C-alpha cells in the first residue's frame, strides 16, 4: 500500500514538473468525462420527461380512439356531392368493452370544435361530452361549482363546465356559474369551472397532445341528444358530413399486469364490430412506456457513445504526450535502469503517471458533470430569452427542450471515472512499454 502511495507520489512529482503540459493533457479527459456525464444526464432527463408524459395518460389505462379512415380518391366527382362519412367507435362498443372482467371504470368522450358565445364574447372551444369520471381521469381540479354528474347525464341536462381560460375569455371577472352560454345553436347553463392544466404533449405520435385550456365539458348524453353525431364541415367549394358517435373511450383496468390482456380483449371485441373498416385504434400507455424505456436505452447508448469518442480522443492526447515524455526523459530512464530499476519498474512508473493524469482528469470531469443541470439551465434560459421570446409555444421540439431538466444518472459517475482510468491504462501501456524496453546503455548516452 505504502509502495503504491510512493509511486503515485513520484508520478505527481514528475507531472507537476510540467504543470501546463499536464494540465492541457488532462483537459482532454476532463471534457471527455464531462461530456459522458452531461450527455447521459440529458438523455435521462429527456426520457424521464417522456415517461412522465406517458404516465399522465395513466399506466393502468387502455384507450380506444376513433380515427378517420383514409378517403378513397377514386370517387372523383363525389366530393361535390354531400356525402356522409360515418366512422369511429359506436355507442354499442361502450357497452361491449364495459363488460370485460378487468375493466373497473370507463370514460367515453365525444368531442367537437365549436364556437362558444356569451353576450358579445366569442371563443373557439372544444366541446367535450363526457361523464363524471373525466375529471379524475385527466387529473383536473374544480375551481368552483360542480363537474358533470351522473344525474346530468341521466336527465340530459343542458349544463356545461368551463375551463378556467374559457370562463375568463367569455365572462371576464364575472362569476360564470348560473349564467348561460351558447354553443353553436344550443344554450347551456354553466355549473362549474375547472382549473387550467398544463397541456400534456403527444407521445410516440399515437395520441395527439391535449390542450385543456379551451375546453367546455358537457354531459355526453346531452351531447348525443342535442348536438348529435353529425358534423358538417364546410370548405371552399364543397362540404363534407361526418358521423361519429364516440371519439374516445378510456378504460381503467384493475392493475398493471391486466393492462395488456385487456387491451388484447378490447382489440378483439372491436375487430368484431368494425369489420368494414379499421376506423379506430387502441392505445396502451403502458406499451408506450415500455417503448419509451427502450428508446431511453437507445438514447443513452447513442449519447454515451458520442461522448465516449471524446474520451478516446482525450486518451490519444495522453498517449501522444506520454510518448513525447518518454523521448524527453530517455536519460532519466537510463539512469534509473543503471541504478537497478527493472523493466517492470519503468513500466509501472510511466503507467502510474498516465493513470494519475487520466484519473485526476476524470475526477475534475465528474465535478464539472455534476454542474450539468446548472449549465443546461443557463443554456435554456439563453435560448428562451434570445430565440423563443414572444412565441408562446415554440413547437414540440422547443417545449421538449425548454421543459426538460437533465437528470444526473448516478451510475454514470463511477462508469465515467472507470472509463477514464481505463483510457489511461490503454493509452499509457504502449509509451510505458516503449520506455521500459529502451536499452539502458543507449538511454544513458541520450542527450
Amino acid at each position: 500500500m505504502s509502495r503504491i502511495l510512493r509511486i503515485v507520489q513520484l508520478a505527481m512529482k514528475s507531472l507537476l514538473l510540467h504543470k501546463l503540459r499536464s494540465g492541457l493533457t488532462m483537459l482532454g479527459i476532463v471534457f471527455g468525462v464531462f461530456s459522458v456525464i452531461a450527455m447521459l444526464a440529458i438523455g435521462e432527463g429527456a426520457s424521464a420527461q417522456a415517461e412522465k408524459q406517458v404516465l399522465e395518460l395513466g399506466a393502468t389505462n387502455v384507450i380506444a380512439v376513433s380515427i378517420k379512415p383514409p378517403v378513397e380518391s377514386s370517387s372523383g366527382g363525389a366530393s361535390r356531392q354531400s356525402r356522409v362519412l360515418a366512422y369511429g367507435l359506436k355507442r354499442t362498443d361502450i357497452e361491449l368493452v364495459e363488460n370485460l372482467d378487468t375493466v373497473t371504470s370507463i370514460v367515453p368522450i365525444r368531442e367537437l370544435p365549436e364556437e362558444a358565445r356569451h353576450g358579445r364574447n366569442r371563443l373557439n372551444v372544444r366541446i367535450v361530452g363526457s361523464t363524471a369520471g373525466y375529471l379524475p381521469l385527466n387529473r383536473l381540479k374544480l375551481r368552483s361549482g360542480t363537474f358533470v354528474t351522473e344525474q346530468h347525464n341521466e336527465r340530459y341536462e343542458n349544463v356545461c363546465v368551463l375551463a378556467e381560460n374559457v370562463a375568463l375569455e367569455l365572462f371576464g371577472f364575472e362569476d360564470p356559474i348560473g349564467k348561460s352560454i351558447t354553443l353553436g345553436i344550443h344554450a347551456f347553463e354553466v355549473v362549474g369551472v375547472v382549473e387550467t392544466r398544463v397541456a400534456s404533449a403527444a407521445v410516440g405520435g399515437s395520441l395527439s397532445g391535449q390542450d385543456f385550456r379551451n375546453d367546455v365539458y358537457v354531459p355526453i348524453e346531452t351531447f348525443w341528444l342535442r348536438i348529435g353525431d353529425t358534423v358538417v364541415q364546410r370548405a371552399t367549394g364543397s362540404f363534407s358530413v361526418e358521423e361519429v358517435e364516440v371519439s374516445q373511450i378510456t378504460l381503467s383496468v384493475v392493475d398493471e399486469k391486466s393492462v395488456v390482456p385487456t387491451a388484447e380483449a378490447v382489440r378483439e371485441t372491436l375487430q368484431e364490430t368494425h369489420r368494414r373498416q379499421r376506423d379506430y385504434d387502441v392505445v396502451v400507455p403502458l406499451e408506450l412506456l415500455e417503448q419509451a424505456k427502450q428508446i431511453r436505452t437507445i438514447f443513452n447508448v447513442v449519447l454515451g457513445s458520442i461522448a465516449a469518442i471524446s474520451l478516446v480522443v482525450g486518451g490519444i492526447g495522453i498517449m501522444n504526450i506520454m510518448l513525447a515524455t518518454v523521448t524527453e526523459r530517455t536519460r532519466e530512464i537510463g539512469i534509473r535502469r543503471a541504478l537497478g530499476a527493472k523493466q517492470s519498474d519503468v513500466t509501472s512508473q510511466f503507467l502510474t503517471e498516465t493513470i494519475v493524469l487520466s484519473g485526476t482528469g476524470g475526477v475534475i470531469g465528474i465535478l464539472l458533470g455534476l454542474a450539468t443541470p446548472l449549465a443546461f439551465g443557463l443554456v435554456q434560459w439563453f435560448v428562451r430569452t434570445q430565440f423563443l421570446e414572444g412565441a408562446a409555444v415554440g413547437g414540440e421540439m422547443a417545449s421538449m427542450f425548454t421543459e426538460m431538466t437533465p437528470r444526473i444518472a448516478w451510475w454514470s459517475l463511477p462508469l465515467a471515472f472507470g472509463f477514464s482510468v481505463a483510457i489511461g491504462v490503454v493509452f499509457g501501456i504502449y509509451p510505458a512499454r516503449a520506455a521500459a524496453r529502451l536499452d539502458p546503455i543507449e538511454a544513458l548516452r541520450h542527450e
Partner: protein
Amino acid sequence: MRLAAELVDLVKDYDLGTFVVHALRGVTLRFPAGDYVAIMGTSGSGKSTLLNLLGALDRPSGGTYVLGGEDVSTLDDDELSRIRNQMIGFVFQSYNLIAQYTVLENIEVPLLYRPGHPPITSADRERCAEVARRVGLGERLDHRPFQLSGGQQQRVAIARALVNDPEILLADEPTGNLDSATEQEILALFDELNGEGRTIVMVTHEPEVARRAKRQIYMRDGVVAGEGVFPG
C-alpha cells in the same frame, strides 16, 4: 585474497548486419577486493564496452564475468537489474542526477529498486544522510541538482553509488567535467573510499588521473595491451 570481480576470456561482438564488430576479443582481468584500477585506452579500444559489461548493463558474447562470487554473464534482464542495484555503484562523467529530485531523493533512488521493494524507512533516510555527510554534502540535502556546483553534483552521484553498499564502484571519466581544483577534491574522495576498502574501477583517458589509481590497465583493439604503473 578475495576477488571482488573476475573476468575470464570475455568476448563482446556487435552484429551490425553487414559486418560484425569485435569490441572485446578475450579480456581476462582480476580485481581483488580493495583494488583501485584505472582503465585507459583510446576511443574504440573497447574500454567503454568493458565498462558496460562490468556494470552489468550488457551481457558478454562469450567468457565469464564473476562479480562478488556470482556468475553474472548469463543472467536475464531482471537479474541484471538486481545486480546493478545491489553490487554496483555507478559514477558518471555528467553526474546523471534526476533533475526534479532533491539531493536526498536522488541518493534514495537505488533504495526504490531494492529486491522486493521494501518501503523506505527512517533508518534508510538516516543512512542516506550519513552517506551524504561522508562525501561532504551534510548541509545541502534539500537542494536540487541545478542549485549545486559540478563538484557537489558529483558528490551526490558518489553518495548515490554508495548507498546500497556495492561490491565495486564504477566511475566513467568522473572528473571529465570538472575544473582541476574540484578534480583533486573528487580524486581525494576516491582515495579515501579506497582507503576504507572500496573496490574502484575507473575509466579515464587522463594520465594524471589514472596515476592516482593503484593499477593502470591499457586497452587496445579489444584486448588488454598492457598493465602497470604509469608510464610503465
